């Protein structure tokens, strides 16, 4: 089973990287960009019988830092 973990900064946590990229997009002349937030994508191939609980635990214990980040688990159809 293929799983994508989308890790993003929690709302309210400042994202200096996103701000710098936003600025660079402005500099390239792309108007109308209102906000940029940078996250992380983790793609995993896991055993088909991997439980949702196990996936949640992977996210909470390692893949995301729950102090500053949220995560979303996406199971990708083969």
């Amino acid at each position, binding site marked *: 089973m293929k799983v994508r973990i989308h890790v993003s900064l929690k709302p309210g*946590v*400042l994202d*200096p*990287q996103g701000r*710098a990229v936003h600025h660079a997009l402005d500099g390239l002349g792309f108007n109308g960009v209102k906000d940029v937030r940078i996250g992380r994508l983790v793609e995993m191939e896991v055993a088909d019988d991997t439980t949702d609980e196990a996936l949640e635990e992977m996210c909470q*214990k*390692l893949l995301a*830092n729950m*102090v*500053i980040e949220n995560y979303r688990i996406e199971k990708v159809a083969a």
Partner: protein
Amino acid sequence: MKTAVVTFPGSNCDRDMWVALRDVSGKEPVKVWHGDADLPDGLDFIALPGGFSYGDYLRSGAMAANSPILRSVKAAADRGVPVLGVCNGFQVLTEAQLLPGALMRNAAQNFICRTVPLVVENDSSLFTSAYSKGETIRIPVAHHDGNYFAADDVLDRLEGEGRVAFRYAENCNGSRRDIAGILNARGNVLGMMPHPERAIEADHGGTDGRRLFEGVIKSLVSA
């Protein structure tokens, strides 16, 4: 007096830490490798040094926080053994949840490498007893991810309980409430971004960091 410095793949301040502890304590610290399952018995003090453990993969400190040796460090901290984490060591301590909060990319995105003024906020901890509250000291910083973040209620609790050890006199990285170093609730774990081990020799730019080690060693000897 038995001290130890833990080295991870990518640590680069471990030798400076080792020398600082040796010079101040008069005894050679034990060198511990990240893959060692256990710490040596009878340790009085453990230091997690600066650097880029595991290449800062995933997040700074995240991989080291889940390495075998950290289980032993956590157990030692729970028993009350003093643990100092400097720079990457601080990142490891937050990732291991031995300290609250997280260290994010510096607000200006830049790597900062210079000596900064710090204000001593707590002079009664094991680590800070050789300083005076309100005193300004000068310690080098060298980091990319030193922007301390914690939720407001956590920050309020840290301040209310006197657990902010050091603040930046000039906020160099965007840290919330200018926080440069914090203590755990019990007071035996200190994490700080500035490098006291780089400020122990006058010939190397200052000795303000030396007193941190002197304070620790003195408290341990008298304990």
